[in-house]
Structure formats: structure tokens, C-alpha cells
């Protein structure tokens, strides 16, 4: 199955750009809004954003690539972030990641060809008491075990 990433809603992106145009320190809020809305920042929008914010396109790209929170490639509908912090590691976070890689047939940083899932790791989710943990979009899942991982994934695969 090889599907195209979701269509970009350019009207919405233009609206977002227009909203932040020329505002001092407005670049990061603008990028966040585009990222939030589109799931990533389409590279084609860099020049438009730069023009609106009176910056060089290279500067805008510099900011996007600096922050892990911004992406220039489309991500899946669900972004899975597996915690690789110390507490999670001790509690078997590595096998959680391995299991997810196997279940989803994705490596770290990859997006499935149907743009449903993106698998990522993070240094720490700050929820060590729930170790081992992961996040799917904005939801936390803690005290993971192989069965729990499979059932959570199953839920999302059905959606």
C-alpha cells in the first residue's frame, strides 16, 4: 500500500501566515500553528513564511530544523513517541520500542506508507512514575507491557 500524504490545506496555511505576518517574535507561534494544523511544515511554505516575517528563507529553515517539535516531512495521523529515559530503560523501555517496531514494521523516525503512524523516540517524557511510557499524539500510556502495547496499537489500528 502506497498512499499519498494528506492534501495540504493551503488556504488555511495562508490564513495562519496572514495572522502572524510582521508580528515581532511571531515566527515560532506561526510555525507551531502550521505544524499543529498540517502535521508538519510543508517545505514549500518556507519562502511564503519568510516573506511574511521579513526573514531570509534560510533563517526560517534554520529555526524549523533546530527544534525537534517541527518537521519538514509529513507525519502519520498518529505520532507514537516511545520514552528512552533512564527510568523507562530500566523498566524495559527498549523491548517496548522493539515490539512496536515489529508490530508497525517501522524503524525509529519512519512513517508508515499509509500515513497512519509515525514512530519516534524521545529522551524523556517526564512521566517516570509511569515507566515504561509512550505517547500517542497527546495521550500518555504508562506501565507498558507487551500485551498492553499490542492492545493499544490494536485500538489505534482499528480507528
Amino acid at each position, binding site marked *: 500500500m502506497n498512499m499519498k500524504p494528506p492534501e495540504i490545506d493551503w488556504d488555511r496555511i495562508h490564513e495562519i501566515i496572514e495572522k502572524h505576518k510582521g508580528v515581532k517574535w511571531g515566527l515560532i507561534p506561526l510555525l507551531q500553528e502550521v505544524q499543529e494544523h498540517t502535521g508538519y511544515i510543508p517545505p514549500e511554505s518556507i519562502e511564503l513564511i519568510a516573506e511574511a516575517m521579513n526573514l*531570509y*528563507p*534560510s*533563517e526560517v529553515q*534554520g529555526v524549523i*530544523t*533546530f527544534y525537534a517539535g517541527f518537521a519538514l516531512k509529513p507525519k502519520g495521523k498518529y505520532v507514537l513517541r516511545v520514552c528512552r529515559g533512564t527510568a523507562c530503560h530500566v523498566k524495559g523501555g527498549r523491548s517496548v520500542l522493539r515490539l512496536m517496531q515489529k508490530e508497525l514494521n517501522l524503524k525509529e523516525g519512519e512513517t508508515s506508507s499509509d500515513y497512519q503512524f509515525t514512530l519516534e523516540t524521545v529522551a524523556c517524557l517526564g512521566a517516570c512514575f509511569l515507566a515504561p511510557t509512550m505517547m500517542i499524539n497527546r495521550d500518555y500510556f504508562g506501565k507498558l507491557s507487551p500485551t498492553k502495547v499490542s492492545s493499544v496499537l490494536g485500538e489505534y489500528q482499528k480507528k
Partner: protein
Amino acid sequence: MDKIVLTIDNKRISCPPGTSILQAATQNDIKIPHLCYHPDLKPFGACRLCLVEDEQSGRLMASCVTPVAPDMTIQTDTPRIISHRRNIVRLMIAEHPESCIVCSKGNRCQLRWVAAQMGIGETNLYAMPNYKPLEQANPFIIRDLSKCILCGKCIRADHELVAVGAIDYNSRGFASRPATVHEQGLEQSNCTFCGTCVSLCPTGALSAKNSRYVGSPAEESFSICGFCGVGCSLAMGQSANKVIDVNPAHLTESVNKATLCVRGHFAHDFLNSRRRIIAPMMPKKGEGETLQMTPVAWDEALDQVAERLRHIRDESGPQSIAFVGSSKCSNEENYLFQKIARVLIGTNNVDNGGYVSGQFLSTILDQKTGGGCRPSPVSDLEKADVIVVLGADPNHSLPVVSYYLKRIAKNGVPLIVVDPRKTELVSFASLWLPVKPQTDLELINALAALLHETNAYDSEFIDHYAEGFSLFTYALSSLDVDKVCRMTGLEMKDLNATTALLEEKRLAFVIGHGILQQRYGTHTLGAILNLSLMTGSLGAEGAGIYILARENNQSGAMDMGTVPNLLPGRMPLAEDSARKTWEKNWGVKISPDPGLNLGRVIKAAESGQIKALYIMGENPLRSLPQPQRVKAALANLDFFVVQDILDSEIVKLADVVLPGAAASEKSGSFTNLEGRIQGFSPVVSPPGKAKPDWEILDLLAKRLGAAEAYGTVEKIREEIRHLVPAYADMNGRGPGWVKTSSPMAVFGAAGAREKISFSPVVSTADEPADSDYPFTAILGSLRYHLGSGTRTSASDRIREFDYGGEVDISVADADKLKLKDGDAVRIETRWGEIKRKIGRSNRIEPGQLFVPLAVNANDAMNLIDLNDLADPNTTGWKTCAAKITKV
């Protein structure tokens, strides 16, 4: 403010507040190692090599970003600091590929130098080279980012000095690297290949690309760039008598400081072109009885020139001989050249290549203000209230001027760009006025009228220095603003917005070829002068009129009298007193006959009126309209001498070819657009048997009957300094300035003794549309070539870049004509046609085409007719009605 006193290395130092510790130390000869610091860039604190220790607190701090504080006690080389610095360098080297032996940066690598200073050979660290692919798809710059130490000099130079913004840091940490948008090669970015980053890069991460192995320079010496009118200071590296490397000479008094442009940096490889002329030549019968250009001895060539010129003068009179000098040759050479014409031959038929650029239009300003518009350093624009750029695209024509404009605009000085095209400068402008071509005159007049209406002008200045204001305002009052809007294509709100920016301000005008070569150039310049007078913009710092000279010595050639109507020092030939002065200086009678300019010389050669022509360093076959017609005219000459450095089409037509020298191969001086007279000495000697042009002229003058040869360039310079008051400052070394001594030029409190009169308000008529030729083709230059491109086309790098000169068309027109990027088209006008590829562009308005000059032997000149640019009724060389068809 009070000075701050502190101690560095036990030395008491006082310096102004705000100075960094590094600057304070450097000013007092205390050396602190550094890699990321550069005096022209904002301090960045990236490399941490400049660490110093504060004795009181024991803190280590980067001295480049730490300002001095009272009673600080700083140590710069304690064992603790040295140990830290060594570790920093060790870490840099551990990440650096071990390729010093083959690295083109060689002995100029600052990282290697710093490591050697600290005695670091082996790092004893686990090597973690950060390999990146070598990027060298373009012919100018090689990027090997595995050698990057993240000092940020390239990025800061790109943003702060040249304001292009092609690169910035990408990513973070170990992955961090300077990158273009979408991480493409430089050739696909908006990089202008000015090479400023290459000169600043402390390692081999950025280096100049050569078309073949050239080695490292054995010696470096200063010179002045011979391309555009900015006159950048260069540091030229030579090896085996060849210039192999060019960098900006970082001199405090230079125009360019740490910057250059693609031509200055990379196109100087034309010096080593195979097309250089290396011996005098004359057509002689070879095998098969056909005439072939054959090398001859200097004596034979010069004797022939002298004999034939004398013969033609005696037979047909001095007016049958014409001389065309060069806006690329030195002041000394141009002075000697016109002296030969006027004194030894007795004709005023002498002009130079500046004719092509419309340089002579500046005589209007000279006449009105007595030369009061000069000299004005470009750096003064920083002090301007408002800058108005008219018909100029300095990003391409004079890049270093554009760096100034962009930097100044970024600092908040309002910039108004008046141009039919959305040039790169527009993104830095407060206001862009997309006037229709050739309607600048209407716009300027309308702005004057609106300023008058709101009483937002400098009446005190007008009272002091100008006359005829009431007549002028009376003429303005009858101006039909609706008509102005219709003709310029602007709306009333644009005009009002502009007026609001100009109110009660002193203006600096930056004038380009869009004005100088256009149809109403003379009147437009008059209108600009009116507006300058009205706003009190003359004689003040950061205000006035800047004429962008396209070629390096365009102003100098004019100052030296290598123009038909002016004697040296821009003294009008028509004035008896001026002629008397020079008759006394030279001890001969000067003909009062006005001479012919370059355009008229060609027509006179066509009709047979001109029988002999001597051209030095100019190629009218490339630079004038209707090349076929020019060629026929040149073929019609009885005797034709070409003194040049490169083989070209005109060389084939010559009866005698004399090989001259480029700027880096001789001594002399150039006068740049600001009136800065800059001396230079040879970096290398001329190739083969070629000689410096002044020497050729000196030898010829002797043969034509000059009493004494000059023998040295200093002697010629001495005579100029003595006889031309404006050049009293001229020396062979650092910069001198063109002096103004006219009573009108002095804008002191007392007022001028002679007042400047307002020029009449000229109104133009609507141009009827031409249904056969519905487009307006605008001819203009692009940065990879200078002028007609003779020298830049001989540069291997520029040739390899293979810039095709795509014609820009608006996306709307392209859609209508179903044209895709790269489609071949034919552009036709009433005068001729050319074939080019097309490029769809958002920078041009529908109904217009932009045709780049200088490519394909400058074939664009076929599109316009050979009208006399100096005639006030000229139709201009800038635009023409055109049609376009897909082929």
C-alpha cells in the same frame, strides 16, 4: 563618555565603554587567538578560543563578547587558559578530516595555524570526522562541510555584510551545518557567488574552485578591481607571474572592506585566458596569398600606426581621425590618449566606452552645480534620511553598492525603489514604485508638485542656493497628476505614500542605467536635480546624487577629457577660457570644433568622413546597437588600430593590433563612482610581449612628434596633478579624492556665489501602443557579466557557469502564450531579432520582457537601433517594443 580603565596582562589600558576585551587587547598589541571573530562582523562567541581569565572572580570568558568593565584585571595566557584553549582546538581537530596535505586552503588555514601555534599535532582523542559530501557543482565555490568548525563567519557575512541570506545554520549539535533552503547546492539557492564567505572561512570548508590546478599563491599584493565603478580593493595572489587567487584586501579605507562580488572574486581568471593578445599583430600575406594576422615587432607596429595616422591627417585633415579611449583604462592612460588626439593629431574626436553607459549625462549635473555633486562616499548613505533608487539594480550592476543599500535599509533608513521590475532590492525597500518604463520623469515631476502643494520643502536652501523657483513651481502647478498616474501606471495613493516619506527630508538619489540610457534621460536627470534643490539635498552628507558608473574608470576617463566636449578636469571645450587654459598648458592651439562621440564616430565611418580610428580597450562591436552596421562601418575605415587585451571580432578587422595590459599588470589610478582616486601597482607583468597601455601611448606619442617621452607613469601623474586642480589629491598609493572648487559647489552658510537654476519642467506625451510589437523589452545586466561582457566571457569560471541569459516573462503572459520555463523563443523588434530561452518570473509585470545583456556576444544589442544616446531626443537604449514567438 568617560573611558574605562582596566588591566590586561598587567598593562593598564583605557578604552571607551562598550569595547570588548578582545578589541581592547588588540588595540594594545596584546594578541589573543581567535577563529570566529572578525572586526566587520558582530561578535558571536562561537569558537571560544579567545577565552581570557578574570583574575578577581577566576571566571573564564570569551573576550570577543565580553565588554570591558572598570578595574577589570584580565589575564590572557595563564596555564589554565592555555590548557582550555588546547582542549578546544583538540576537539575541533578530532572532528576534522585528516586531509591537510591535499586541502586547497593550505598555509592559509587558520585552524592549522592556531593548532601549530599551540603545538598540537596528535590530538590523542578518538577521531570522529563528520563526513559530508563534497559540493562542487558550481564553478566558483567548493563546499566541504566536513571541515566546518561552525564559526558562523560565512553565515554572518551572508546576512550582515552582503545581505543575501542564502545560508543559515541547520539542525543542532553534531548535525549542525550551514545550509541553503531545502538543503540544495549553492547554484540552486539565491547565492550570488560573491565569495565573501570563501575569503572569511578559517578552514578548508569553503574554497575557491579553479578550472585546473593552480597551486598556492607565492605572493600577495594589492590592486584595484577593474570591473565596475565601485573600485574594490583586491588582494591578488600570484604564482609564476599568473594571478591565481583574488580576495578582498581588507583595508580600513577601502570601499568594499571584506566583501566582493562574483566578478571581482572569480572572473579575474580572464587574465590567464588563451584569448589574451600577447604580441603586436598586423595582417600579412601568408600561404595562399590570404591576409593573416601575424605577430610583428613593436617598432614595426608603432611605426606603421604613426606613419599612417600622420599620412591620413595630412591628406584628409585631423577631423578624419577619431580616437576611442577606455573607461577601463587608467586616468594616466586616458589623459595621454586624449592628449595625443588633441595635441598631436589636432582633433576633438575622442570618446570612451562610458558613452555606452550614458556617463556623459552627468555633465548636466556638472554644468548646473559646477561639479558640486561630487565627491560623495557611498558610506555616507548611512546618514541619509531617505534613499531613492531610480532605474538601478545594483544587486547585479554594482553589487557592493547594493550591500551598502541593503545594510542601510535593514538599519531602518527608508528606501524607495523606482523600477518597473521587482528587483531583489525591493524586499529591503519601504516602498516600491513599479513605474512603466521611461516614465520616471513624470513621476519625479509629480513628486515635486506634491511636495510643493504640501509646502514640505526646504525654502531656506532654495533662497540661498537656487534661482528660478517661482517659475519652476508655476510650471509644476499646471501638471496633470491624473495623466502622471495613467502614464506611470501608479495610483494616487502610491504617490501620496511616497510624498509622505519624502516630506521635509533630505534625499539621496541612486541613479542607474534605467535613467542614463533611457529615452528621457537628460530631462529626468534635470528633474532629479530640481527635486534635490527643492529638498535641500545637495552638499549635505548622506544626500545628493549618486550615479552608478558601470565601468571602473568611467568617471575618471571623463575627468581626463577622453570625451569630445570636455577638456581634462571636465572643462567645457566650448568655453574660450577653458580652451585658453589648456592651450597654455600644452603650448598648442586647440581646435574649437566639437568632436564626435562614439555613436557619431561610427556613423561618420559609415559615410567615409572618418578614415582612421584608434580604439583602446573598447569593443564597439559588442557594446553598440546594431552590431552588423557597426561592423560594416569599421570595415569601411582606411586605417583601424585596436589596442586591447583580448582577441575579439574587432581584432580581426584591425590594420594594427597592439597588446595592452589589464589593471593588475600595470601601474595607474582609477576614479570610482564616488570620486575616489585609487592608485595601483602591478601584481604581475603583462603576458608575452604585451605592454602597459600608457607605455604604448608614450611610445606612439614620441613617434607622432611629442617633444619628450614621459617614460614613467609617475611623470604623467605628476602632470595631471599639476594641471587638473580636481586631481591635486591624486597619488600613486592610497585613495585621494576628486576636489570640487567651483563657487556653486560650496554649500556653506554664506550661500553660493553663483546660484543653481531650476531646470525647465518637461512633460512627455503618452506613447502610442504598437500592435505589431506588443511587449516592452527591457535590456539590463546580470551579475555574472560586466557591460558587454568581453572580459567576463573570457573567464573560464563564468563560461562554465553557463549562464544562458533567459528572457524573463511574467507568469500571466507565459500562460497566455503557453510558454514553459526553458522554452526557446524568438524576440523580434523593428531592428533585429535574437533567440533565447524563456524564464517565467514573478518579478516582471505583464507586457514586459527582461532581456539580459552580455551573453551570446551581447546579441541583445541587435534589438535596438544605433541612435545617438547623447542626443536629448534619443529614443534610448534601455527599452524597445518587441514581439515574442515560440520556436
